C-alpha cells in the first residue's frame, strides 16, 4: 500500500460519501454543504493527479464562486427555513435504476480501458504547471505547443455576456408570495 494509493483511498471515500450526501439530503442547504465537501475533495484529487493549477482553479472558481452562487440561490428561493420537498418512492426507484445502469456501463468501460492504456510506469512526469498552461492560453507561438488564445477570448467574452444577461434576468420584479 503506497502513499499514493492510501491518499487516493481516503479522498475517494470522502468524495463518494459527500456525493451520496448531496443526493440523500432533504433540505437544500444540507445538499449545498455536502456539495462543498465533494468539490473540495475533487480539487484534492486534482492535486493528487499532478494538476496543481487546476486544483487551485477548482477551489477558487468552483467552490468560492459557483457554489456560493448556488447557496445564495437556494437561500433566496426557500419557501420556509426547514422546507423539504419530498420525492415519491417510485421516482427514487426509477432514478436508482437509471443511475445504477449508467454507473455499470461507465465502470465496465473504465475497467476495460485500464488494461489498454499504458500504466503509470510509462507516463513519468507531472502535468504542466501554470507556466506552460498560461503560455498556451496566451497563444505564444511555439513549435510543439498548440495555442488556445481564441478559445480563451471566446470564453472570457462568453462569461461576461452571460453574467450581464443573468443579472438582467434576475432583476427585481413583482413578487408573488409563496403559497401558504
Amino acid at each position, binding site marked *: 500500500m*503506497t502513499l*499514493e*494509493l492510501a491518499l*487516493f483511498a481516503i479522498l*475517494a471515500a470522502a*468524495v*463518494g460519501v459527500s*456525493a*451520496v450526501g*448531496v*443526493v440523500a439530503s432533504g433540505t*437544500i442547504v444540507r445538499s449545498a454543504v455536502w*456539495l462543498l465537501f465533494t*468539490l473540495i475533495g475533487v480539487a484534492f*484529487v*486534482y492535486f493528487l*493527479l499532478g*494538476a496543481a493549477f*487546476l486544483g487551485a482553479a477548482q477551489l477558487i*472558481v*468552483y467552490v468560492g464562486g*459557483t*457554489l456560493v*452562487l*448556488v447557496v*445564495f*440561490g437556494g437561500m*433566496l*428561493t426557500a419557501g420556509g427555513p426547514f422546507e423539504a*420537498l419530498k*420525492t415519491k418512492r417510485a421516482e427514487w426507484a426509477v*432514478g436508482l435504476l*437509471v*443511475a*445504477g445502469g*449508467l*454507473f455499470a456501463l461507465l465502470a465496465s468501460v473504465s*475497467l476495460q*480501458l*485500464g488494461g489498454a*492504456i499504458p*500504466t*503509470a510506469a*510509462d507516463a513519468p512526469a507531472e*502535468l*504542466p504547471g501554470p507556466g506552460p498552461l498560461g503560455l498556451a492560453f496566451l497563444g505564444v507561438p511555439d513549435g510543439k505547443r*498548440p495555442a488556445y488564445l481564441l*478559445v480563451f477570448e471566446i*470564453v472570457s467574452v*462568453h*462569461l461576461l455576456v*452571460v453574467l450581464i*444577461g443573468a443579472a438582467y*434576468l*434576475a432583476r*427585481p*420584479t413583482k413578487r*408573488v408570495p*409563496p*403559497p401558504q
Partner: protein
Amino acid sequence: MTALGPTPFLLLAAFLFACGVLCVATKRNAVGVLMGVELVLNAANLNLVTFARFRPEFRLEGQVFAVLVIVLAAAEAAVALAIILNFYNARGSVDVDTADHLKG
C-alpha cells in the same frame, strides 16, 4: 505515482456521474437539480484530467479543457439561478413539479 493507474480515477468519476444523474432525476427543488448538474460536470473534468495525466499526448489539452469546463459551468450556474429566481418571483415556489404550464 507508480502504483496508481487510471482505472481508480475513472471509477470515481463514474460514481460521481451516477450520483449527479440521480440528483437531477429525483430532486424536486430546482437548485437541487442544478447541484446534480455540477456533479456531472465535475465527473467529466475528473475524466479529462485523468486521461491528461496518463496519456502523454493529452498532457496540456486535458487541463485546458478542464479549465474551460470550469468557466462554462460557472456561467451556466449563473444563468440557471437567474431563471430559477425569475420562476420563484412569478410563481412563489421552486418546485419543478409545478412547472407544467406547457403541458398539453
